[in-house]
């Protein structure tokens, strides 16, 4: 059963990885298009999870409807965030941007504690409580849904960025913002779409994984750190690199958690990430121009 157990842990890691990847992809998009590190990105994930919880448990919507409600709410939140905080800090130095977004994250986390309490919320669904059992190899259906849905989302994201007019404008902006403005790209609108898209990705990730894990107010901090580690390791704003690095983090964490020490799994994931950065300070995939 050693092989089966290993396979189970790898699959577990891939689910974690797809969760990190959806959050990290949004972070990489923001970094690529707006040249901005959003330290409050984990809080997008946290708020998305609470929006899903509200829809599913309080409004008693069906799973699919609640899972769509979360990104819908977070798109509005992402746009509002871009209009207020981001516009004020965009022309400033990276120090100011980092501290301002970190401050936003602290405010959001503690507001969530005040409004929603520190008691973790559990949102089990039918899919998360039924287990697929193939010859002793067991996996929750919800995990399969996470994996499948994330693959569809990454494919759609890739199509959007490479094929649509707005997506191409985003890539162009990530290469040269001034030139975009010169040839008539609506820079503000593209930035707004980027933030809306990033917030939606984080919320979709939250709606997909919330049935598997608990929801609590400071879950965003660790999420920001892991997503950011993926973005840095993936090559600073290169979206596909960030996605690949996220899966690496997820699998490392799952294997470390089951074979080394569960308590130290986050620490091990970070040490691996720092080791990767020492080996390649420009990220695993090198620094590329553009998203």
């Amino acid at each position: 059963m050693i092989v089966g157990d290993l396979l189970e842990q790898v699959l577990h890691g891939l689910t974690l990885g797809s969760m990190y990847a959806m959050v990290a992809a949004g972070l990489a998009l923001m970094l690529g298009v707006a040249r901005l590190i959003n330290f409050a990105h984990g809080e997008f994930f946290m708020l998305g999870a609470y929006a899903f919880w509200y829809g599913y448990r309080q409004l008693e919507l069906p799973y699919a409807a609640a899972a769509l409600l979360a990104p819908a709410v977070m798109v509005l939140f992402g746009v509002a965030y871009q209009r207020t905080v981001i516009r004020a800090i965009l022309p400033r130095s990276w120090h100011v941007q980092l501290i301002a977004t970190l401050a936003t994250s602290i405010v959001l986390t503690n507001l969530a504690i005040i409004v929603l309490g520190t008691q973790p919320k559990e949102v089990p669904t039918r899919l998360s409580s039924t287990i697929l059992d193939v010859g002793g190899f067991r996996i929750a259906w919800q995990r399969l849904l996470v994996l499948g849905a994330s693959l569809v989302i990454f494919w759609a994201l890739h199509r959007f960025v490479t094929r649509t007019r707005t997506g191409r404008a985003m890539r162009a902006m990530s290469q040269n913002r001034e030139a975009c403005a010169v040839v008539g790209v609506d820079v503000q609108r593209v930035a707004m779409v980027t933030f809306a898209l990033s917030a939606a990705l984080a919320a979709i990730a939250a709606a997909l994984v919330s049935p598997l894990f608990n929801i609590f107010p400071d879950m965003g901090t660790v999420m920001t750190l892991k997503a950011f580690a993926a973005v840095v390791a993936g090559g600073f704003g290169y979206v596909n690199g960030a996605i690949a690095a996220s899966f690496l983090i997820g699998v490392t964490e799952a294997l470390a958690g089951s074979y080394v020490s569960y308590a130290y799994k986050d620490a091990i994931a970070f040490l691996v990430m720092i080791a990767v950065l020492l080996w390649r300070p420009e990220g695993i995939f090198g620094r590329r121009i553009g998203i």
Partner: protein
Amino acid sequence: MRRAAWLALGAACFAAPWLVAAVVPGQQRYVLHVLIFTALFAALALSYDLVVGHVGSLSLAHPAFFGTGAYTAAILSTGAGWPFVADVAAAVAAAAVVAAVVGVPLFRLTEHAFAVGTLGLGLVAWIVANNWVEVTRGPLCITGIPKPRLGLPGGPALAVTTLPAHYWLALAALVAVVLLYRGLTTFRLGRAFHAVRDNEPLAGAAGIDPLKYRMLAFTIAAGLAGGVGALYVHYLSVMCPEEMTIALTVNLLVIVFLGGAGSLRGVLLGAVLFTALPEVLRLAPTWRLVIYGGLLLVVVVRSPGGLEGLLRRAPGAAR
């Protein structure tokens, strides 16, 4: 004039226990407790500002060094029975050594990546403090840390037991940190720090090795943070992992950026406002963080120089 003002301030700080006793006799203990926290937080914030304000590296790992010092002192004084002076020295050394060891890889990262690497380190330190139960006792905390005894083993010793004595000890530590801070940031060394902060390629071209000066500031700051951590646990007589979470980083960022990064007067002012105000307003901890976060956001966006920047711009300013 400036010298006279500083002397008056120093005298007032030294005489604070008597002043407090004269002004608010009923609440003397409470006010002194707040003043001790203010002095310790000011010293910690000054050490943090050496890295953030003077060499311009946004490190988020300061709680890790504070915690290293605090745990070193706590473990040595309770388990091994080390005398106060020796365990504080060991705390300074331990934190500085940790910083020197992790600084070598961390300073290969730049800007955002450095910030994330240091934040990750801070998180790892907290996880270790929580889970390495055999050494740190984890969430059960290390308790019964003895009160400081100044003096050499065998010789005459001065026990610090009363609140005014704790206050003078904290004040002495703050004065020592202030003098060191002035010494490090004003002379040739300070100009090298600022050159590295303001224009790294130019500093490098002028023969100032940026890495060397960054490492120097980072290591000294960590050692000071470790020393403050040691004094902190000797005062509270208990050390828990919660003392070294990201909330401490936020507090330090608020003090430094509210007061004015890179300015002695600004950081001291920030520390006083930060520790005294919430006590006066009696805020709940969660609301405190919401307000600090909001304040930090507004200050860095609207007035990046902090209070110091406002003071300098004010009409009739001292300089």
